[in-house]
């Protein structure tokens, strides 16, 4: 489990420490306050560590490997012109520091870079052990329609797409899980498949389809919102989102109508209950409330943290607590209320 993330002078954050919940972490904030940056920073560190043993060919982490791997991951995921562009912008040179801490402190790791860094980072604390679980990153859009050939194209040419897309596309192509986990997978999949009206299939040609009673439909012919469900369903079906690991999901509610947001909220809680540590960033009051209602009614044991990002003279700061009530004002709510005030004052 990822216990905390500390960002100093990183993008918009002068000094922000996030202490995460075991199951579900919800990041709330207006556009431009760095919600996605939090998800991506944590994802980069977890992704580098999870692939460390395989990619470095070394069962023990080494600084020299991490320096290169971490810098490459940041460049691939954030796509800055140079690494130094990720340091918080202010007068003079500035050093950016990022640290993450785990339940198992042997995995703790810290790196830093400065405004002048081109393509390198310094490893300030090297982990003693690699993490085992592969993190999953779901961007705001679905990836099933671009899947055919995407990974090989990404690897062989220069594409401006973020590396999270490639990483997730690789996971989408994994074979379906078999054995003892199948029953749990069926339980998680059932409501998603009901909403899609069918099951997700990966054709030998490398294209995804939804198979329904009326035959199979190319993913391009399926509604955008349902494609997001299909992407989630596929990752559950192949075991990428089950039992252990991490899910980072940027705006799960994007492109979904309220009925599907309701389903997504339940699925998020279901997934986190199986043991996946979930991190979401959202603008949706509807999603927040749906999660709250489900937690009060059914998911009593889900350990949740809410994080509210707010802009101030000193930069973006974070306020955190167990519930939405603990994190003070919510811009989303205030805007809805102000709209009601404008409406009620119409002549």
């Amino acid at each position, binding site marked *: 489990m990822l216990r905390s993330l500390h960002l100093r002078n990183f993008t918009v954050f002068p000094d922000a420490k996030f202490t995460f919940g075991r199951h579900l972490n919800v990041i709330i904030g207006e556009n431009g306050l760095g919600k996605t940056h939090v998800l991506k920073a944590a994802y980069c560190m977890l992704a580098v560590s999870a692939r460390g043993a395989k990619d470095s060919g070394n069962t023990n982490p080494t600084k020299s490997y991490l320096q290169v791997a971490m810098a490459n991951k940041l460049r691939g995921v954030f796509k800055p012109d140079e690494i130094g562009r990720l340091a918080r912008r202010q007068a003079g040179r500035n050093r950016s520091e990022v640290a993450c801490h785990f339940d198992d402190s042997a995995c703790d790791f810290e790196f830093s870079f400065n405004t002048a860094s081109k393509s390198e980072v310094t490893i300030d604390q090297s982990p003693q052990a690699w993490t085992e679980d592969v993190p999953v990153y779901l961007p705001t859009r679905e990836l099933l329609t671009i899947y055919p050939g995407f990974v090989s194209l990404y690897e062989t040419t220069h594409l401006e797409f973020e590396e999270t897309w490639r990483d997730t596309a690789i996971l989408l192509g994994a074979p379906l899980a078999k054995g003892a986990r199948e029953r749990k997978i069926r339980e998680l999949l059932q409501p998603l498949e009901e909403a899609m009206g069918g099951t997700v299939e990966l054709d030998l040609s490398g294209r995804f389809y939804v198979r329904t009673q009326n035959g199979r439909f190319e993913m391009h012919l399926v509604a955008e919102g349902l494609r997001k469900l299909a992407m989630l369903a596929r990752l559950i079906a192949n075991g990428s989102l089950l039992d252990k690991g991490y899910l980072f999901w940027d705006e799960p509610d994007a492109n979904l109508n309220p009925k599907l947001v309701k389903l997504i909220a339940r699925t998020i809680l279901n997934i986190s209950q199986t043991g996946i540590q979930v991190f979401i960033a959202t603008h949706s009051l509807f999603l927040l409330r749906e999660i709250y209602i489900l937690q009060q009614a059914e998911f009593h044991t889900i350990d949740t943290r809410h994080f509210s990002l707010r802009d101030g003279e000193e930069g973006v700061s974070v306020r955190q607590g167990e519930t939405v*009530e603990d994190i003070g*004002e919510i811009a989303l*709510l205030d805007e*809805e*209320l102000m709209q009601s*005030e404008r*409406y*009620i004052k119409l002549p």
Partner: protein
Amino acid sequence: MTTLQVGNLSFQFPDGWEVSQYDEWPFYKNRFKDTCGGNKAIDLLALDREDRTLWLIEVKDYRQYAREKEIELWDEIALKTRDTLAGLVAARFNGVNADRTQAQRALRAHRLRVVFHLEQPIKSSKLFPRAFDPANVQQKLRQLIRPIDPHALVIERNAMANVSWTVT
């Protein structure tokens, strides 16, 4: 049963409750209202003697009258709540006659609850079936007055959230 009238709304409280229109208390009207540059008042104080709960009830009825005040609705309720609590404490020590004894009894309650009774404008609009989403107002109010009542309620005649009084 005790009945109190607030504008066009009639509030019926169970027997044994001590209820009053706080802004009619002589202590508030004559002495406290203009203290410290001015104090607001919520509409009703209702003491459930059996349950030892003091209810502060603010009423807004937009069915006929438009809203004109500049201050945001939720800020207004929060300020009224704060000012009323200050007024009650002042009346408890410095009020005379009924005001003083009533404030004494009110402040002996074990629980403090805040209720905002909001009747919405009868406008028909597809985009705004309700001018205010009561869930929004309730969440905002709970944020604003959390140390006073973290479970403040926003209710209306058709959705009374299990309170013990009725409104017609």
